Protein backbone atom coordinates (compact mmCIF):
# COMPACT_ATOMS: atom_id res chain seq x y z
CA UNK A 1 0.00 0.00 0.00
CA UNK A 2 2.73 2.44 1.01
CA UNK A 3 4.41 1.72 -2.32
CA UNK A 4 1.44 3.19 -4.22
CA UNK A 5 1.61 6.41 -2.20
CA UNK A 6 5.37 6.62 -2.77
CA UNK A 7 4.80 6.09 -6.50
CA UNK A 8 2.30 8.98 -6.67
CA UNK A 9 4.63 11.25 -4.70
CA UNK A 10 7.62 10.39 -6.89
CA UNK A 11 5.49 10.96 -10.00
CA UNK A 12 4.35 14.36 -8.74
CA UNK A 13 7.97 15.36 -8.02
CA UNK A 14 9.17 14.16 -11.43
CA UNK A 15 6.38 15.94 -13.28
CA UNK A 16 7.03 19.19 -11.42
CA UNK A 17 10.78 18.88 -11.96
CA UNK A 18 10.33 18.13 -15.67
CA UNK A 19 7.94 21.01 -16.27
CA UNK A 20 10.07 23.55 -14.39
CA UNK A 21 13.39 22.37 -15.91
CA UNK A 22 12.12 22.36 -19.49
CA UNK A 23 10.43 25.70 -18.94
CA UNK A 24 13.70 27.15 -17.59
CA UNK A 25 15.50 25.81 -20.66
CA UNK A 26 13.02 27.61 -22.87
CA UNK A 27 11.45 24.47 -24.28
CA UNK A 28 8.10 25.30 -25.82
CA UNK A 29 7.14 22.09 -27.59
CA UNK A 30 4.17 20.45 -25.90
CA UNK A 31 5.03 16.97 -27.20
CA UNK A 32 8.43 17.02 -25.47
CA UNK A 33 6.75 17.55 -22.11
CA UNK A 34 4.15 14.82 -22.67
CA UNK A 35 6.78 12.37 -23.95
CA UNK A 36 8.81 12.85 -20.78
CA UNK A 37 5.68 12.47 -18.61
CA UNK A 38 4.97 9.19 -20.40
CA UNK A 39 8.50 7.97 -19.80
CA UNK A 40 8.38 8.96 -16.13
CA UNK A 41 4.97 7.38 -15.57
CA UNK A 42 6.04 4.08 -17.14
CA UNK A 43 9.34 4.01 -15.22
CA UNK A 44 7.55 4.65 -11.91
CA UNK A 45 5.00 1.99 -12.84
CA UNK A 46 7.72 -0.56 -13.64
CA UNK A 47 9.90 0.16 -10.61
CA UNK A 48 7.38 0.83 -7.84
CA UNK A 49 4.40 -1.12 -9.26
CA UNK A 50 1.64 1.01 -7.72
CA UNK A 51 -1.73 -0.64 -7.24
CA UNK A 52 -4.77 0.43 -9.24
CA UNK A 53 -8.47 -0.08 -8.63
CA UNK A 54 -8.91 -0.89 -12.32
CA UNK A 55 -6.74 -1.21 -15.43
CA UNK A 56 -4.01 1.40 -15.65
CA UNK A 57 -5.86 3.73 -18.04
CA UNK A 58 -3.48 6.72 -17.58
CA UNK A 59 -0.60 4.54 -18.85
CA UNK A 60 -2.63 3.53 -21.91
CA UNK A 61 -3.69 7.13 -22.59
CA UNK A 62 -0.14 8.50 -22.20
CA UNK A 63 1.27 5.78 -24.43
CA UNK A 64 -1.38 6.49 -27.09
CA UNK A 65 -0.57 10.22 -27.02
CA UNK A 66 3.16 9.44 -27.13
CA UNK A 67 2.68 7.18 -30.18
CA UNK A 68 0.60 9.89 -31.87
CA UNK A 69 3.36 12.50 -31.38
CA UNK A 70 6.06 10.08 -32.58
CA UNK A 71 4.00 9.17 -35.66
CA UNK A 72 3.49 12.86 -36.42
CA UNK A 73 7.24 13.53 -36.14
CA UNK A 74 8.07 10.61 -38.42
CA UNK A 75 5.51 11.81 -40.95
CA UNK A 76 7.02 15.30 -40.83
CA UNK A 77 10.47 13.86 -41.62
CA UNK A 78 9.11 11.69 -44.43
CA UNK A 79 7.12 14.55 -45.98
CA UNK A 80 10.02 17.03 -45.79
Amino acid at each position, binding site marked *: *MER*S*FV*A*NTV*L*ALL*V*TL*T*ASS*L*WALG*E*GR*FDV*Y*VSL*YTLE*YLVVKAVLR*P*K*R*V*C*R*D*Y*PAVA*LLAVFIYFIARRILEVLMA
Partner: protein
Amino acid sequence: MLRLQYYNGFGLAISVASATLAALSYTLFGLGPLLALWVGLLVVGVSMVLTPVVEGSKLSDYALAVILNTFENVARAIEGLGVRGRAVYVSSGDWVYIVFGEVYVDDLSRFAVAKGGRVSLVFKSPISAEHLEGLKDPCAAVEYVAVDKLGIAGSVECVDRGDRLYVRFSRPKVYPVKSLERTVGSIYGVVAASVATLTKGLPASIAYESSDERTCAVEVVVGEELWRGAS
Protein backbone atom coordinates in the same frame (compact mmCIF):
# COMPACT_ATOMS: atom_id res chain seq x y z
CA MET B 1 -17.07 -0.78 -5.01
CA LEU B 2 -14.18 0.98 -3.40
CA ARG B 3 -15.31 3.92 -1.35
CA LEU B 4 -13.81 7.30 -2.22
CA GLN B 5 -11.36 8.15 0.55
CA TYR B 6 -9.81 11.53 1.35
CA TYR B 7 -6.73 10.61 -0.64
CA ASN B 8 -8.78 9.77 -3.73
CA GLY B 9 -10.89 12.89 -3.18
CA PHE B 10 -7.76 15.03 -3.10
CA GLY B 11 -6.65 13.38 -6.35
CA LEU B 12 -10.04 14.07 -7.89
CA ALA B 13 -9.81 17.74 -6.85
CA ILE B 14 -6.35 18.00 -8.47
CA SER B 15 -7.66 16.30 -11.62
CA VAL B 16 -10.69 18.59 -11.97
CA ALA B 17 -8.69 21.75 -11.20
CA SER B 18 -5.86 20.89 -13.59
CA ALA B 19 -8.29 19.82 -16.35
CA THR B 20 -10.10 23.17 -16.02
CA LEU B 21 -6.83 25.11 -16.05
CA ALA B 22 -5.60 23.04 -19.00
CA ALA B 23 -8.72 23.92 -20.99
CA LEU B 24 -8.29 27.58 -20.08
CA SER B 25 -4.59 27.57 -20.97
CA TYR B 26 -5.28 25.89 -24.31
CA THR B 27 -7.95 28.47 -25.14
CA LEU B 28 -5.75 31.43 -24.24
CA PHE B 29 -2.22 30.28 -25.16
CA GLY B 30 -2.62 27.10 -27.25
CA LEU B 31 -0.19 24.18 -26.95
CA GLY B 32 2.67 25.24 -24.70
CA PRO B 33 4.55 24.77 -21.44
CA LEU B 34 1.69 26.04 -19.28
CA LEU B 35 -0.72 23.52 -20.77
CA ALA B 36 1.95 20.83 -20.29
CA LEU B 37 2.19 21.67 -16.59
CA TRP B 38 -1.57 21.20 -16.09
CA VAL B 39 -1.53 17.98 -18.10
CA GLY B 40 1.26 16.69 -15.84
CA LEU B 41 -0.76 17.52 -12.75
CA LEU B 42 -3.81 15.90 -14.34
CA VAL B 43 -1.82 12.67 -14.72
CA VAL B 44 -0.78 12.82 -11.06
CA GLY B 45 -4.37 13.53 -9.98
CA VAL B 46 -5.80 10.63 -11.98
CA SER B 47 -3.08 8.37 -10.59
CA MET B 48 -4.15 9.33 -7.06
CA VAL B 49 -7.82 8.73 -7.85
CA LEU B 50 -7.04 5.21 -9.12
CA THR B 51 -4.93 4.28 -6.09
CA PRO B 52 -6.82 2.00 -3.71
CA VAL B 53 -6.80 3.13 -0.09
CA VAL B 54 -6.91 0.29 2.41
CA GLU B 55 -8.78 0.49 5.66
CA GLY B 56 -8.81 -2.15 8.34
CA SER B 57 -6.21 -4.23 10.08
CA LYS B 58 -4.31 -7.41 9.39
CA LEU B 59 -5.29 -10.65 11.04
CA SER B 60 -3.72 -11.50 14.35
CA ASP B 61 -1.53 -14.59 14.75
CA TYR B 62 -4.32 -16.16 16.78
CA ALA B 63 -6.93 -15.68 14.03
CA LEU B 64 -4.48 -16.97 11.42
CA ALA B 65 -3.82 -20.11 13.46
CA VAL B 66 -7.57 -20.75 13.69
CA ILE B 67 -7.95 -20.38 9.91
CA LEU B 68 -4.97 -22.65 9.23
CA ASN B 69 -6.32 -25.37 11.53
CA THR B 70 -9.66 -25.21 9.73
CA PHE B 71 -7.81 -25.45 6.42
CA GLU B 72 -5.90 -28.48 7.58
CA ASN B 73 -9.15 -30.19 8.47
CA VAL B 74 -10.22 -29.79 4.84
CA ALA B 75 -7.04 -31.56 3.74
CA ARG B 76 -7.65 -34.30 6.29
CA ALA B 77 -11.23 -34.78 5.06
CA ILE B 78 -10.06 -35.09 1.45
CA GLU B 79 -7.27 -37.51 2.31
CA GLY B 80 -9.47 -39.47 4.71
CA LEU B 81 -12.21 -39.95 2.12
CA GLY B 82 -9.65 -41.04 -0.45
CA VAL B 83 -10.79 -38.50 -3.03
CA ARG B 84 -8.53 -38.26 -6.06
CA GLY B 85 -8.17 -35.54 -8.64
CA ARG B 86 -7.24 -31.91 -8.56
CA ALA B 87 -8.87 -28.80 -7.21
CA VAL B 88 -10.68 -26.51 -9.65
CA TYR B 89 -11.75 -23.09 -8.46
CA VAL B 90 -15.09 -22.01 -9.88
CA SER B 91 -16.91 -18.74 -9.28
CA SER B 92 -20.63 -18.59 -8.77
CA GLY B 93 -22.02 -15.13 -8.12
CA ASP B 94 -19.78 -13.45 -5.58
CA TRP B 95 -18.46 -16.75 -4.23
CA VAL B 96 -15.68 -19.09 -5.22
CA TYR B 97 -16.10 -22.83 -4.82
CA ILE B 98 -13.23 -25.30 -4.69
CA VAL B 99 -14.26 -28.49 -6.44
CA PHE B 100 -11.98 -31.39 -5.66
CA GLY B 101 -12.39 -34.74 -7.38
CA GLU B 102 -12.96 -36.41 -10.73
CA VAL B 103 -16.72 -36.01 -11.08
CA TYR B 104 -18.26 -32.96 -12.79
CA VAL B 105 -20.41 -31.02 -10.33
CA ASP B 106 -23.34 -29.08 -11.75
CA ASP B 107 -24.79 -28.00 -8.42
CA LEU B 108 -22.15 -26.19 -6.38
CA SER B 109 -24.40 -25.98 -3.34
CA ARG B 110 -23.89 -29.73 -2.75
CA PHE B 111 -21.01 -30.80 -0.56
CA ALA B 112 -20.33 -34.13 -2.23
CA VAL B 113 -21.22 -35.73 -5.54
CA ALA B 114 -20.63 -39.43 -6.22
CA LYS B 115 -20.88 -41.10 -9.61
CA GLY B 116 -19.64 -44.54 -10.63
CA GLY B 117 -17.50 -45.00 -7.55
CA ARG B 118 -15.85 -41.62 -8.01
CA VAL B 119 -16.39 -38.70 -5.66
CA SER B 120 -16.07 -34.93 -5.87
CA LEU B 121 -16.16 -32.62 -2.88
CA VAL B 122 -17.18 -28.96 -3.00
CA PHE B 123 -15.78 -26.40 -0.55
CA LYS B 124 -16.46 -22.70 -0.34
CA SER B 125 -13.30 -20.60 -0.66
CA PRO B 126 -12.67 -18.19 2.21
CA ILE B 127 -12.08 -15.47 -0.40
CA SER B 128 -15.14 -13.94 -2.05
CA ALA B 129 -15.77 -10.93 -4.32
CA GLU B 130 -16.57 -8.82 -1.27
CA HIS B 131 -12.96 -9.15 -0.07
CA LEU B 132 -11.54 -7.68 -3.29
CA GLU B 133 -13.34 -4.35 -2.73
CA GLY B 134 -13.90 -3.87 -6.47
CA LEU B 135 -10.30 -4.51 -7.56
CA LYS B 136 -10.22 -5.88 -11.10
CA ASP B 137 -6.49 -6.37 -11.59
CA PRO B 138 -5.53 -9.87 -10.33
CA CYS B 139 -2.04 -8.86 -9.15
CA ALA B 140 -3.31 -5.82 -7.25
CA ALA B 141 -6.08 -7.94 -5.74
CA VAL B 142 -3.68 -10.72 -4.62
CA GLU B 143 -1.43 -8.17 -2.91
CA TYR B 144 -4.42 -6.42 -1.37
CA VAL B 145 -5.80 -9.63 0.14
CA ALA B 146 -2.52 -11.33 1.13
CA VAL B 147 -0.47 -8.34 2.33
CA ASP B 148 -2.90 -5.58 3.26
CA LYS B 149 -5.85 -7.54 4.60
CA LEU B 150 -4.67 -10.97 5.78
CA GLY B 151 -1.05 -10.02 6.42
CA ILE B 152 0.16 -13.52 5.49
CA ALA B 153 3.09 -12.21 3.42
CA GLY B 154 5.47 -9.27 3.55
CA SER B 155 5.24 -8.51 -0.14
CA VAL B 156 4.01 -10.02 -3.39
CA GLU B 157 5.59 -10.23 -6.83
CA CYS B 158 3.05 -11.05 -9.49
CA VAL B 159 2.91 -11.49 -13.25
CA ASP B 160 -0.37 -11.80 -15.13
CA ARG B 161 0.02 -13.61 -18.46
CA GLY B 162 -3.68 -13.83 -19.27
CA ASP B 163 -4.20 -17.56 -18.94
CA ARG B 164 -1.56 -17.90 -16.21
CA LEU B 165 -0.90 -16.00 -13.03
CA TYR B 166 2.51 -16.25 -11.39
CA VAL B 167 2.64 -15.11 -7.79
CA ARG B 168 5.61 -15.12 -5.43
CA PHE B 169 4.81 -14.36 -1.79
CA SER B 170 7.88 -13.07 0.05
CA ARG B 171 8.38 -13.31 3.80
CA PRO B 172 5.43 -15.68 4.34
CA LYS B 173 3.95 -15.38 7.80
CA VAL B 174 2.54 -18.90 7.90
CA TYR B 175 4.41 -21.95 6.77
CA PRO B 176 2.33 -23.75 4.11
CA VAL B 177 0.94 -27.10 5.24
CA LYS B 178 2.25 -29.84 2.93
CA SER B 179 -0.96 -31.88 3.09
CA LEU B 180 -2.89 -28.84 1.91
CA GLU B 181 -0.52 -28.25 -1.00
CA ARG B 182 -1.30 -31.76 -2.24
CA THR B 183 -5.07 -31.21 -2.07
CA VAL B 184 -6.77 -27.82 -2.35
CA GLY B 185 -3.57 -25.78 -2.13
CA SER B 186 -1.98 -23.88 0.75
CA ILE B 187 -3.52 -20.65 2.01
CA TYR B 188 -1.29 -18.84 -0.51
CA GLY B 189 -2.52 -21.04 -3.34
CA VAL B 190 -6.12 -20.61 -2.25
CA VAL B 191 -5.76 -16.80 -2.18
CA ALA B 192 -4.05 -16.68 -5.61
CA ALA B 193 -6.46 -19.10 -7.30
CA SER B 194 -9.58 -17.57 -5.75
CA VAL B 195 -8.52 -14.07 -6.78
CA ALA B 196 -7.69 -15.27 -10.31
CA THR B 197 -11.14 -16.90 -10.57
CA LEU B 198 -12.94 -13.80 -9.33
CA THR B 199 -11.03 -11.20 -11.36
CA LYS B 200 -11.01 -13.17 -14.61
CA GLY B 201 -14.43 -14.76 -14.20
CA LEU B 202 -13.05 -18.13 -15.31
CA PRO B 203 -12.28 -21.43 -13.58
CA ALA B 204 -8.76 -21.68 -12.18
CA SER B 205 -6.45 -24.35 -10.91
CA ILE B 206 -3.11 -24.34 -9.11
CA ALA B 207 -0.57 -25.67 -11.61
CA TYR B 208 2.45 -25.39 -9.37
CA GLU B 209 3.20 -24.50 -5.80
CA SER B 210 6.49 -24.44 -4.02
CA SER B 211 7.56 -22.95 -0.72
CA ASP B 212 10.50 -22.51 1.57
CA GLU B 213 11.09 -20.37 4.63
CA ARG B 214 11.50 -17.14 2.65
CA THR B 215 9.12 -17.41 -0.30
CA CYS B 216 6.08 -19.24 -1.57
CA ALA B 217 5.66 -19.43 -5.35
CA VAL B 218 2.30 -20.22 -6.90
CA GLU B 219 1.37 -20.66 -10.55
CA VAL B 220 -2.32 -20.50 -11.32
CA VAL B 221 -3.71 -21.57 -14.67
CA VAL B 222 -7.01 -20.04 -15.80
CA GLY B 223 -9.40 -21.24 -18.49
CA GLU B 224 -12.86 -22.55 -19.22
CA GLU B 225 -11.43 -25.94 -20.27
CA LEU B 226 -10.34 -26.63 -16.68
CA TRP B 227 -13.94 -26.92 -15.60
CA ARG B 228 -15.18 -28.71 -18.72
CA GLY B 229 -12.24 -31.08 -18.30
CA ALA B 230 -13.67 -32.22 -15.01
CA SER B 231 -16.83 -33.52 -16.71
